[in-house]
């Protein structure tokens, strides 16, 4: 079963088609607080995959009948912008964006504090500006930063990346071509630098041993991203002097 346009090989001389080594991540670019009206915002990019996130809350939840009298309702919404993919993506909901919104909300539910403000909502919006695989991962990374930027209480940041299998070899951070023509794609997200997986989705055939290798490679990748996220937050606010927040 061949796919039209499939390249003969995805790895040549131990280098991937975009020049990377097997365990090399794409260049990461982060911008925290780029949207001034949003309570918190951030852009996170893996190479050509770019995600914008914005976070609001806790705020009064509408519609009222969906309020939870015991805690905050967390709603994460993932969407692909129409011009983000090669072929125009139809704007609005799709089954894929519905599922991703669900699993991303579930991922953040482990770290965002939801019990302090009953009947309120925290809304996180993730918009994929450019899609070149690992969009949900970029989205989660951006959302983590947006939540922190918004001053929303969290146990820790969540970091996410994807591992693939191409030409029989495991690689870190697949890009579009590898995602389309590769054999396996596994997206994961962990809490801080722990082994607690809050997101885990895999397609493709692997043995039990390969699966655990994938989790290990991905986990280490996530830890690298965590360091980058922390650095970006510190950079944005890093200019601290004596003359800052004073007491009354």
């Amino acid at each position, binding site marked *: 079963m061949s796919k039209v346009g499939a390249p003969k090989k995805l790895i040549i001389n131990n280098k991937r088609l975009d020049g990377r080594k097997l365990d090399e991540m794409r260049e990461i670019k982060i911008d925290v607080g780029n949207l001034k009206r949003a309570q918190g915002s951030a852009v996170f990019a893996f190479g050509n995959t770019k995600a914008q996130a914005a976070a609001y809350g806790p705020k*009064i939840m509408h519609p009222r009948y969906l309020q939870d009298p015991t805690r905050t309702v967390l709603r994460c919404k993932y969407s692909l912008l129409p011009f983000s993919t090669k072929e125009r993506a139809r704007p609005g909901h799709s089954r894929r964006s519905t599922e991703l919104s669900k699993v991303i909300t579930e991922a953040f539910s482990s770290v965002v504090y939801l019990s302090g403000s009953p009947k309120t909502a925290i809304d996180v919006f993730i918009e994929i500006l450019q899609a070149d695989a690992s969009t949900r991962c970029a989205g989660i990374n951006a959302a983590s930063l947006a939540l922190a930027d918004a001053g929303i209480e969290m146990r820790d940041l969540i970091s996410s990346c994807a591992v693939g299998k191409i030409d029989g070899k495991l690689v870190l951070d697949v890009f579009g071509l590898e995602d389309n023509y590769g054999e396996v794609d596994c997206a994961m997200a962990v809490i801080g630098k722990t082994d607690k997986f809050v997101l885990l989705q895999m397609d493709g055939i692997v043995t039990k041993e390969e699966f655990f290798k994938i989790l290990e490679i991905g986990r280490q990748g996530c830890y690298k991203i965590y360091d980058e996220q922390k650095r970006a937050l510190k950079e944005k606010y890093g200019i*601290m002097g004596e003359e800052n*927040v*004073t007491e009354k």
Partner: protein
Amino acid sequence: MSELLVKDREFVTPGDVLATGLDYLPGNGCYREKDEIKSKLLGLVKLKERYISIIPLAGVYSPRQGDGIIGVITDLQPNMWIVDINSPYDAILLISEASNDFIDTRRRDLSSYYDIGDIIYAKILSVTKSKHITLTMKDRKTKKLISGKIMSITPSKVPRLIGKMGSMIELIKTKTNCQIVVGQNGVVWIKGEKESLASKAIKLIESEAHIEGLTDKVTKLLEGDLDE
């Protein structure tokens, strides 16, 4: 073996470990996980004896008893007013707390005291666990704010806006010849000669609260616009 890993005023992010061991206690914005105290927020560390807490650099207003806040009346009910206080929860002003005078509802309509759209500087009387917030207008500092304009800033920037011993806010008041009232909930009321200039200065402080040399920058803005 307890160890403090951060200094006072150090910038931290969610998940950062602030201290180990059981000697230190987690205050606002911190939590304990086994034998570590970690930050829940993006903010600055505040150390007070054994308590570690975080001053947030962003976030919504979390109502606290005793806070002086600026609110807008949004609804009238048989014996109370509903007030928008720029927080995830609305607050209530009961008749019994509305005035030091006796209110006779048979003689006067509630709206003659406070009507929908009125702006008030009130004190938070109580905040229950289920987030029912009640206000009082019987404190000597509380009052209705007539005319003027209101704007809002991130609540965590309020201390910066007020400044050491009120110095920053006084600077703006004198240079713009305005009355200014700042609510702990981030709402600011301005009335006077150069209201626009005052709000410009306030916006500047909000966006650069964490940067050095802010007082000079604000002074320059206020003086440079004398010929406005």
